[in-house]
């Protein structure tokens, strides 16, 4: 019996030769234990070495191989061909980002947004090493743990129509990460992060479509993080009105 095959329609853009991007069709062996990334690696190794894409760990940890698979943002290492077989699979670079080449997107905007929320612990006063570690109870850890599971794969940005329409929007992952540090008992940097977060292009641009949470492979629930940040910020405002002399 001949080896069954599956068709992949892959987005191609080679800026040195293409004015406009297009699709290229590849026929690859179909195996039930292959994910889309395996098929793309097969193309790169045996059919067409010019295909460009990002990948690294192939086990859902590194967050490099996010692609639009049949129009849905997914990690290509965690999406099995058998979910689509025998129908063809359409593979495109993550939506809402400029395309550098083929399936490679430009992630400068995301990187800049990620650092803008200061994703590190900001203590009120740094302790000397001799004072020992910053301690935390399991209950304090539980408050932020879910939001700390982000792998920066950017699927949430590709799923967010607000980011697509308003590229200025800080976006789901950056806000979830800000919330992760704001909820950390060792951190007192919330007021610094609020300068970026509590703005029109921060949390208030979010209209709660909720697809960021749906596509998140790490179950971070960025939509929840953003709404919780909105609630906390609204409470800041109420406190400011009721107790104008109190510190924020």
């Amino acid at each position, binding site marked *: 019996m001949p080896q069954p095959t599956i068709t992949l329609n892959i987005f191609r*853009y080679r*800026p*040195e030769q293409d004015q*406009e*991007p297009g699709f290229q069709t590849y026929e690859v062996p179909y195996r039930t234990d292959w994910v889309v990334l395996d098929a793309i690696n097969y193309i790169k190794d045996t059919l067409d070495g010019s295909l460009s894409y990002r990948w690294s760990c192939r086990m859902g940890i590194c967050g490099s191989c996010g692609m639009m698979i049949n*129009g*849905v943002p997914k990690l290509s290492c965690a999406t099995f061909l058998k979910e689509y077989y025998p129908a063809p699979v359409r593979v495109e670079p993550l*939506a*809402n980002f*400029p*395309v*550098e080449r083929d399936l490679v997107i*430009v992630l400068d905007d995301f990187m800049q947004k990620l650092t803008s929320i200061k994703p590190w612990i900001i203590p009120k006063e740094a302790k000397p090493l001799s004072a020992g570690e910053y301690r935390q109870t*399991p*209950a304090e850890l*539980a*408050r932020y743990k879910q939001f700390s599971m982000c792998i920066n794969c950017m699927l949430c940005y590709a799923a967010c*129509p607000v980011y*697509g*329409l308003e590229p200025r929007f800080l976006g789901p992952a950056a806000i979830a990460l800000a919330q992760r540090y704001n909820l950390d008992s060792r951190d007192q940097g919330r007021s610094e992060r609020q300068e970026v977060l509590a703005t029109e292009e921060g949390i208030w641009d979010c*209209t*709660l*479509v*909720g*697809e960021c949470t*749906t596509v998140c492979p790490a179950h971070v*629930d960025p*939509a*929840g993080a953003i*709404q*919780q940040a*909105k*609630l906390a910020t609204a409470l800041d405002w109420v406190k400011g009105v009721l107790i104008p002399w109190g510190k924020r």
Partner: protein
Amino acid sequence: MSAYRRAMPSTWWLRNRAYFLFMVRELTSVPIAVYLILLLLMVRKLAAGQEAYEAYLRFLATPGMVAFHLLALAAALFHAVTWINITPKVLVVRVGENRVPPALVAGANYAAWIVVSILIAWIVVRS
């Protein structure tokens, strides 16, 4: 060499079910806004006297107006249900290391909604 930017089509909200339902939810505000205008007009007619008020009531009883009110009711119910279903995302209640189950948070909201609705119905029916 420059990066290629893909424009977002104006039909993006037809791309999947979640986007479409989001758009439907946003659009529920239109019939609800129209309903509120009709309600404010009713107050105005009431102030204008009994005759104007009764003429307005007859206008509201026309089939078109009844159909509109059913639409506005459906929109309000859809908006309310999706709103309450979202509350556990916003209100994270913790007891020690554990999170109060989301269903309980939403359930409390549904219970409050039913109680308030019964209260209002009682006030309206009694008068």
